[in-house]
């Protein structure tokens, strides 16, 4: 399907305001902390002031007796460890024996008021034996007898080493016209979401928990709570209320969730726990501080002849998504260009700092900065146009990358061409006056991970749809709307297939008791996976209605080419795709000859039935109507170690042309204009797509120009929104968006990812534009004015 085809749709491809936007705008939306449970106890957490120390003793006796206090717990009350990845469950809710970062929970108080809890916290006496901390990558690589995690049985603090190699990189470099190698560095970043982490626990019948949590993945919280607290899954219900931003920072199960649930069980009282902004910074799980050494070989005719990256990432004290991050640092370099000879090594280092994890563009952002900078440098050296070079060497549709990613649909070439025209690239590049510059960079990203974190064969997404005589269609999904509009996209699927206005769809989502299991909102998977599940459920429902319509019209049911579809569809496939025969799992179409529109159902012979009449007819046989749809990625990928990392049923592609103004007196960079072409397949909701792209640019802008956590002796120095610099509206550039549609047969109505992919290539597009403006290259983010000015001065000295 193309964008042209989308014109025949009623809801798909239309700019639809987000469900819930009105509630948020008028302040009536209830976020986790807004929920009012009966007589809750308030919880405060005592946190470590030291980056590394033995806990000699914790005396809670005074705190326990303090006014209003109902319970005080420490690490030994929640001894089981957890972690989002089953392969690195290395974290406990509160430290036991040893603290590993400043801000790590040590004890928690539940009291009748927040004030009582704070007062009691001050009465807890902890004796520490302060240890020498590991504060950066270099220290973490050193041999030691006392690693942060002795259970790994290593003599250093390396958590994970990921390596892959394809083709013959050394030969590739030998055959290059130019080879460039550089070192890059990147500070750790915080997500900066508006709503702090928050959890409330309601307890019934002494052991039934309803956990309201600001989480991107209710399912993981559900599993972790059950395992850590040793209570059966059916006794726990996790609900995500309205959520104010996640960006990866709410996708792990967290200590505060375990603490709140344990305290509810202990006290038999409802519990309320909301983190302060500083605690959000401690909880962190943001982007890893990263060092990159990268080498790129280029030949104008052959393309990128080889790429070799060595990444070191500072993981902080625990695992989180780190093993995945380590692989993503490499594998997300396999596009958007053909690169036959490719190698990477990434080591994740444990340090005594807050934990790093997944953040928008997960793992792929920093290496992308390096590779796109090197590409720009190589083009400059060979005096070739960096846009023209890219146009020649993009991955092609229906192909496999060296590491066996299936590239199904691509329209980045068209996108970059349009961006070149719209931005006036040809007239500007290398021709603007000193101080003004234009730069290009491209990237690609997964539309959900094909290999789920928990290795089982259960579909990654299931959606359930019900209909009754009111005509209201209710779609149930475990996907978690974190502000990105996942509820809206699910409603759009139903509205389109059943020909209903958006107002007749209700979305019940992110509630583990009511909704089918879903892997939640991360890795840009919801539209593709939950969307496909919702679409399949809707098609299933449509077949029920078509059958009833046929009964009313006394005609035969249409013959479906594959009656098994859509239920079984995505389960098919074998590892090696045969692109000639078609994709592994092209999307099922309706193929029924009927038209569903504006609450009318029209037969192939143009007989018109009222939608409600048909629903009633169908209910005669079935009672309330129910349908279900699933999504499970087809089998794909190679058999090498780590082959599952970065595997996705489809990939988005992005091209940026960015224009900057650099003030040569102050070094201040102002990003003036951004032309962004993003191939997200068919943009299901252009309004939402634009919002995601503008947000990605804003977030990239922060990283490239100002954001970064600064540490002194393991202590975050800028853990507040005043000192951690997220760009203000004044910094946001003018943005022009181009949506070069592509034909993604496996995506729901042709859609692919749009939430994350655009961030990574934005950053190097700014750096490349800075080079065009003032002829200096910056290799360390953020690119602050002082660095720019220094570089300009050094450059001038060289010339003198």
């Amino acid at each position: 399907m193309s964008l042209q085809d989308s014109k025949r749709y009623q809801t798909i491809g239309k700019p639809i305001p987000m469900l819930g936007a009105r509630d948020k705008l008028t302040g009536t939306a209830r976020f986790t902390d807004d929920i009012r449970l009966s007589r809750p106890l308030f919880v405060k957490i005592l946190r470590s002031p030291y980056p590394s120390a033995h806990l000699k003793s914790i005396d809670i006796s005074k705190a326990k007796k303090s006014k209003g206090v109902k319970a005080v717990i420490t690490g030994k009350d929640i001894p089981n460890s957890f972690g989002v990845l089953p392969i690195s469950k290395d974290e406990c809710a509160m430290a036991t024996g040893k603290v590993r970062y400043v801000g790590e929970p040590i004890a928690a108080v539940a009291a009748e008021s927040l004030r009582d809890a704070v007062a009691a916290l001050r009465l807890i006496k902890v004796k520490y034996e302060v240890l020498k901390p590991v504060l950066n990558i270099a220290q973490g690589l050193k041999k030691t007898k006392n690693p942060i995690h002795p259970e790994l049985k290593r003599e250093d603090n390396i958590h994970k080493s990921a390596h892959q190699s394809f083709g013959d990189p050394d030969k590739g470099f030998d055959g290059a016209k130019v080879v460039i190698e550089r070192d890059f560095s990147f500070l750790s970043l915080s997500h900066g979401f508006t709503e702090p982490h928050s959890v409330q626990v309601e307890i019934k019948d002494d052991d039934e928990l309803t956990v309201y949590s600001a989480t991107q993945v209710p399912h993981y919280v559900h599993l972790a709570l059950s395992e850590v607290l040793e209570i059966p899954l059916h006794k726990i219900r996790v609900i995500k209320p309205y959520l104010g931003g996640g960006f990866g920072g709410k996708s792990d199960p967290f200590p505060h969730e375990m603490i709140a649930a344990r305290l509810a069980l202990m006290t038999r009282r409802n519990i309320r726990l909301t983190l302060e902004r500083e605690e959000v910074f401690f909880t962190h799980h943001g982007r890893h501080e990263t060092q990159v050494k990268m080498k790129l070989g280029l030949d104008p005719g052959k393309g990128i002849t080889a790429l070799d990256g060595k990444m070191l990432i500072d993981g902080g004290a625990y695992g989180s998504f780190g093993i995945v991050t380590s692989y993503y640092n490499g594998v997300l370099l396999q596009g958007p260009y053909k690169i036959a000879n490719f190698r990477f090594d990434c080591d994740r280092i444990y340090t005594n700092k807050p934990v790093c994890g997944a953040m928008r563009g997960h793992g792929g952002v920093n290496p992308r900065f390096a590779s796109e900078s090197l590409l720009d440098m190589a083009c400059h050296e060979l005096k070739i146009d960096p846009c023209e070079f890219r146009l020649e060497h993009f991955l092609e549709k229906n192909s496999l990358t060296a590491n066996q990613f299936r590239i199904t649909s691509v329209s980045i070439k068209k996108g970059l061409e349009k961006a070149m025209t719209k931005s006036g690239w040809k007239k500007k590049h290398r021709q603007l006056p000193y101080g003004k510059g234009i730069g290009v960079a491209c990237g690609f990203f997964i539309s959900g991970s094909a290999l789920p974190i928990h290795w089982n064969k259960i579909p990654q997404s299931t959606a359930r749809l019900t209909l009754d005589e009111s005509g209201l269609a209710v779609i149930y999904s475990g996907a978690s709307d974190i502000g990105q509009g996942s509820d809206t996209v699910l409603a759009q699927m139903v509205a389109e297939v059943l020909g209903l206005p958006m107002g007749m769809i209700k979305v019940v989502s992110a509630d583990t008791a009511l909704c089918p299991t879903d892997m939640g909102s991360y890795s840009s998977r919801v539209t593709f996976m939950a969307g496909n599940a919702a679409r399949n459920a809707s098609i299933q429902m449509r077949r029920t209605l078509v059958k009833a319509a046929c009964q009313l019209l006394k005609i035969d049911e249409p013959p479906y080419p594959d009656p098994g579809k859509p239920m079984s569809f995505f389960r098919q496939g074998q590892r090696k795709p045969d692109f000639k025969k078609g994709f592994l799992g092209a999307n099922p179409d309706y193929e029924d000859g009927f038209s569903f529109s504006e609450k009318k159902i029209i037969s192939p012979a143009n007989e018109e039935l009222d939608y409600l009449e048909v629903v009633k007819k169908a209910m005669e046989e079935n009672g309330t109507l129910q349908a279900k749809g699933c999504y499970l990625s087809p089998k794909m990928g190679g058999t090498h170690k780590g082959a599952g990392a970065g595997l996705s049923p489809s990939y988005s592609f992005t091209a940026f042309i960015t224009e900057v103004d650099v003030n040569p007196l102050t070094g201040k960079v102002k990003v003036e204009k951004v032309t962004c072409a993003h191939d997200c397949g068919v943009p299901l909701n252009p309004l939402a797509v634009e919002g995601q792209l503008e947000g990605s640019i804003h977030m990239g802008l922060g990283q490239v120009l100002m954001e970064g956590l600064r540490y002194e002796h393991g202590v975050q120095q800028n853990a507040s929104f005043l000192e951690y610099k997220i760009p203000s509206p004044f910094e946001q550039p003018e943005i022009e968006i181009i949506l070069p549609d592509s034909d993604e047969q496996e995506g729901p109505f042709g859609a692919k990812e749009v939430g994350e992919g655009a961030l990574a290539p934005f950053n190097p597009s700014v750096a490349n534009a800075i080079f065009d403006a003032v002829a200096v290259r910056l290799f360390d983010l953020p690119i602050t004015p002082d660095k720019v000015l220094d570089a300009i001065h050094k450059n001038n000295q060289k010339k003198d």
Partner: protein
Amino acid sequence: MLLSSFDYHRPTSLDELFDLIGLIKSQNESFSLYGGGTDLIANLKLSGESPDNLISCSRIEGLAGVRHDPNNNSLFIGAMTRLADLCEDRQVIKKCPVIALTAKKIASPQIRFLATLGGNLLVNTRCVYFNQTELKRDSLGSCLKTGGGSCRLVKSADTCKARFVSDLAPVLILLGAKLHLKSADEERTLMLEEFYRPDGIQKNHLTLGEILSFIEIPLDQPPKILYEKLRVRDAVDFASLGVGVGWNGKKMSAALETILIGTDPAPVVARFYLKDFKDIKEMIEHASNQASALLSPLKQDFFPVGYRKKMARQLVEKMARELTGKP
């Protein structure tokens, strides 16, 4: 972050205020006055401590608003005038537009709706070691300003090195502003330029129980003034460096004045008389070098020390050229 508990008062007249202060003092309790509270309350939250009494001055009659006094041709601005009102005030815009322009560079629109001019002139000094939560102070150790024995930035320092950050102070000093201070038994005036002390803790000459009531600005022969602010973002951020430059070429003794904030515990003031130099160019060159030399920025800001010094020189040079019309 929770505020510790305190008694809250909101007097509506100066008499009521001084009675209240008298009563509080007689009970040996502590107190703080405040205007919009955008600085004070945030600092109290961070410290986890509070005086026994907080007294809001924002409802005291007659302390907000702008009045032109024709007798001695000066502008009286009430200390409780909100920055948002200052930005829009017609007399201010007409007679001293630089005040409105500078006020607009402070914090964010939301904060300016609460923040007052008085509060701005009395805004607390800032430092990475001071503007931290309890836990951070525990981690990093306390400093002079948080009750510790030594400065974390300069080990040997015997006074606090926190930065002075009021954006309006340089502009008002250049305008020759005078402060009207009032206590139960005294009323006095003080030149703003003489008000500040180079100490991040003993910041100024305000005494306990004294209220800043008015700021008086003489309007005869005001210098031409520019103010520029170096900061990371064009909203919200405090000055990493604030540069005010005034030029009075009309006077018999033409002079260039520079006032820099954001680096040292008090405004750094320097004055250059044209008669002491060969020409304007030489004066500007000297002034910009001095601007940089007189500053002692420390490692307590987003921008490195050297960069802020460099910027001081460049901004002064650029602004002085603009003011004197000597490009």
